[in-house]
């Protein structure tokens, strides 16, 4: 097994891979990909490396882990905690709802046009994050929003019941607007990969639909479902624009904390700011890594 994510056997033999070509040609190939590497170094890897380096730098120079030790401070921990809570909640709820909707459009017996309608809408909604989404929710469920007003007509004051759009519950509701569609988009191909023969074989052996799901479909789908939920986790964990537009940047979230640190050293310690940023990169890196491992595992069955 090769280590690449998607092996391409057609080009994998060494003669085509340039192994036996003259050195001059080899150099030519490298020149073809050089701009990409230089560019990535300047605008993706460079910025990450400088943050990594600065996060390890003490106030008087020299390398130290002090900044990472200070991550345990209350400000940082409450921001990380809230980010993780919101990301977990929206990943699990969004994952379950997205899975249900994907299942309904792929094999629930709805008319065919609903499927392409759903995928196109999901493509739109999963990219509809940021300011416009926050604005739409302010007009819907904000203090004077249309739905808030509708509730008042029925004698319910939403904001008296403890609900607020600018709270954990509100942010969760808003984030689900891009989380659910992302789940639908990623999980639909996996559901399509369930082979009809498996269901027929199970039914021929006398399995009930429940048994089929419990013993065949879910075990095959599980890596995809878990992997996509982890992808959703990262998607929400790194989100900044929506929360910024909704709360003006003053809510306890890791991304908003970094934003405040950029505008003015709110942590009163630049080094700690770099460590907070690197902590996010590490958490995101782990979630993407687990996602790609699980995705590769699910490809074994769902091709």
């Amino acid at each position: 097994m090769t280590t690449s994510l998607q092996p391409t056997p057609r080009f994998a033999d060494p003669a085509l891979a340039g192994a036996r070509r003259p050195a001059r040609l080899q150099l030519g190939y490298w020149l073809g990909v050089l701009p990409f590497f230089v560019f990535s170094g300047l605008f993706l890897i460079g910025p990450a490396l400088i943050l990594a380096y600065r996060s390890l730098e003490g106030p008087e120079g020299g390398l130290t882990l002090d900044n990472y030790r200070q991550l345990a401070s209350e400000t940082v921990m409450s921001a990380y905690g809230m980010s993780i809570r919101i990301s977990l909640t929206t990943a699990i709820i969004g994952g379950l709802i997205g899975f249900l909707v994907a299942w309904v459009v792929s094999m629930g017996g709805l008319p065919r046009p609903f499927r392409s309608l759903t995928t196109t809408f999901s493509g739109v909604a999963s990219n509809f994050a940021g300011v416009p989404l926050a604005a739409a929710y302010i007009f819907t469920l904000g203090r004077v929003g249309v739905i808030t007003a509708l509730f008042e007509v029925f004698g319910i004051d939403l904001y008296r019941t403890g609900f607020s759009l600018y709270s954990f519950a509100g942010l969760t509701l808003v984030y689900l607007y891009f989380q659910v569609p992302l789940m639908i988009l990623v999980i639909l191909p996996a559901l399509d990969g369930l082979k009809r023969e498996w269901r027929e074989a199970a039914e021929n052996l006398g399995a009930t639909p429940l048994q089929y799901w419990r013993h065949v479909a879910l075990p095959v789908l599980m890596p995809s479902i878990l992997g996509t939920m982890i992808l959703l986790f990262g998607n929400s964990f790194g989100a900044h624009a929506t929360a910024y537009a909704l709360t003006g940047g003053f809510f306890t979230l890791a991304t908003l904390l970094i934003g405040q640190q950029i505008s003015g050293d709110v942590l009163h310690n630049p080094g700690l700011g770099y460590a907070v940023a690197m902590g996010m990169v590490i958490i995101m890196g782990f979630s993407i890594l687990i996602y790609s491992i699980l995705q590769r595992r699910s490809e074994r069955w769902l091709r």
Partner: protein
Amino acid sequence: MTITTTPAPLAAKAAAAGTPARKNRFWSWLIYVAGAVYFLTPLAATFYWSLRAEKGKLGFEAYRRLFAETDFLPAFSESLVNAVAAILLSLLLIVPTAYWVTLRLPKLRPVVEFITLLPFVIPAVVLVFGLLRLYSRPPLLLTATYDSSRVLLVCVYAALSFPYMFRAVDNGLRAMDVRALTEAAQSLGAGWPTILLQVIFPNLRVALLSGALLTFAIVIGELTIALFMAQHTLGPYMADLTRSKVYEPSAMALVAFALTWAAMGMIAYISRERRQP
């Protein structure tokens, strides 16, 4: 085919299963309608709000006021130019790289795939943090003037598009026989620029357009990076508008939604056209 292999008991069961199937369909509709209500309510509510800008009657006054705002169209056109520049830059970088990696340097594939995933690993707010630290002092001073910051912004947007662009181009390259096309072109005496521009690019049309439109949807209203680089683009402008005006932001949210819908609808349209030649 499946009918002939279906054993008699199963066929009988399927025929008798009219009621459960209808029951299943009921649940399907219920779930679907619940989802539709969740997704359409904010749009409907925002639309209703946007119609109420004039006292006492419903109308499109909010939209008229939005387009009459002095800063709206400049911010929009600036974002438009940035998006187009970022898309072109991204294409220029990704197409040759994906082509070379597919054809000549397959060993580099995992590395390239890893790098194109980096925008998912580094959140935008962290990326801009690093960029400001890297480019705000000599020898790499790029944030000194508005225009140099803008160049930096376009470069970052191009980098943000890598995950989408690389995957789109890579899928496109897999769908055709790159090697045969390349060798055919070479045997006819074409050089590398000709091969890329006249053979590979045209065959990748659909993939490139999808990647470009997706990039457009992501970049056109981008807030975080533009905000911290103090750029007067659509994202920061919309955030300001949301805080300062009452009705215009609702019109703006729906215009943004329509723009995203247009980009995604075009992707769906061109990729469907390709599947039925």
